């Protein structure tokens, strides 16, 4: 999430490929696409790693195609019900959807729209993240089987890496509070 050069999270979030449609012919670089072709020709579409996309797009050799993780289908689903979208599944291993989104946002001219999408999604899901974290903290070490519904189970599995961290923080905090209050009750008996 950070822009720090050494941030592991930032490196993981950028471990993605983005489609680019080339505007110019580039000779002898066909191997980038992994195919057998020798040259990149105009209007070819290749999946390039993000670090290369920066240069290619800024030099105006190609247009970036919005990755499907932020495409209109996902946007519509997020507008309808943010909590039912599995963010982790959208971006593959590690599942840093927000981090990837931020990277993409930096490359766009219209940053506002993307920022709004990410912020609104994050804020709407946050309450559910914290609610579930507190619920699981309240269960205690013994109770693992609660009346947990399928939708909340699927929500937890779809948590993005950033949200997962928040979940752990909230759960740990609630647990400590619970322990402290219970210590008092024990002393009384």
């Amino acid at each position: 999430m950070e822009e720090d050069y050494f941030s592991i999270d930032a490196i993981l979030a950028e471990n993605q490929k983005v489609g680019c449609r080339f505007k110019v012919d580039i000779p002898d670089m066909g191997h980038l696409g992994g195919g057998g072709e020798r040259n990149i020709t105009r209007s070819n579409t290749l999946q390039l790693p993000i670090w290369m996309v920066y240069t290619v797009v800024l030099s105006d050799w190609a247009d970036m195609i919005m990755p499907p993780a932020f495409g209109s289908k996902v946007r519509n689903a997020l507008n309808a019900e943010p909590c039912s979208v599995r963010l982790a599944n959208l971006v593959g291993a590690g599942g840093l959807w927000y981090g990837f989104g931020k990277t993409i946002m930096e490359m766009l001219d219209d940053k506002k729209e993307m920022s709004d999408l990410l912020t609104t999604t994050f804020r709407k899901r946050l309450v559910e993240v914290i609610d579930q974290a507190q619920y699981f903290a309240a269960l205690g070490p013994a109770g693992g089987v609660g009346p947990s519904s399928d939708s909340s189970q699927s929500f937890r599995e779809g948590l993005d890496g950033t949200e997962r961290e928040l979940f752990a923080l909230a759960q740990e905090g609630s647990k400590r509070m619970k322990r402290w209050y219970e210590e008092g009750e024990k002393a009384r008996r």
Partner: protein
Amino acid sequence: MSLPPALRASVTPPELELIACQQLIEIIPLIRMEKTAFIAGAYGPLRPPHRASIPIWMALNLKQKKKCHIVAPEWLSVEFLEAKIKQETTQAEFTKLPFRFAEISRVLLDGASDDLQNPDKLRTLLQDLREARQAKARAGLESLEHSILGLSNLSAMEINEIRPFFIQAMAVLRQLHVPETR
């Protein structure tokens, strides 16, 4: 850092309890003691039956040895707490309570419940109050922003509970935020 993530951002509830126990409380001593110097300051003299102000930790210690009665703070009473719960459930903002009410009420209920009036009722009321305030904090989460967060009248224990994930969530929002003008 080698500290677990949850400890980096906040202190633990027992630490807060320790800090809260530095506050002064009124007692009715049952023993005589001259003015005595401690690291935190000089307390005393204790002359029964006159009231004296000493730190909570010392009061609890004396209480344990049956050498004093603790005078309950005025906010630790059924009427006061009932009024607060009413305010809490009818108003949108948090009601004003002593900053360390959670810690102090717990140590007093644990160590000196026979000096309080109706301790069981107090416990239930404090629990209700806590739940009402938690519900409000949760509602506040929905309007979390990247830059500011108003927490007027929140107590030390409550701030400490929400601090780790609130600051983390705000950090994420700050990353996702685009400044309007550049």
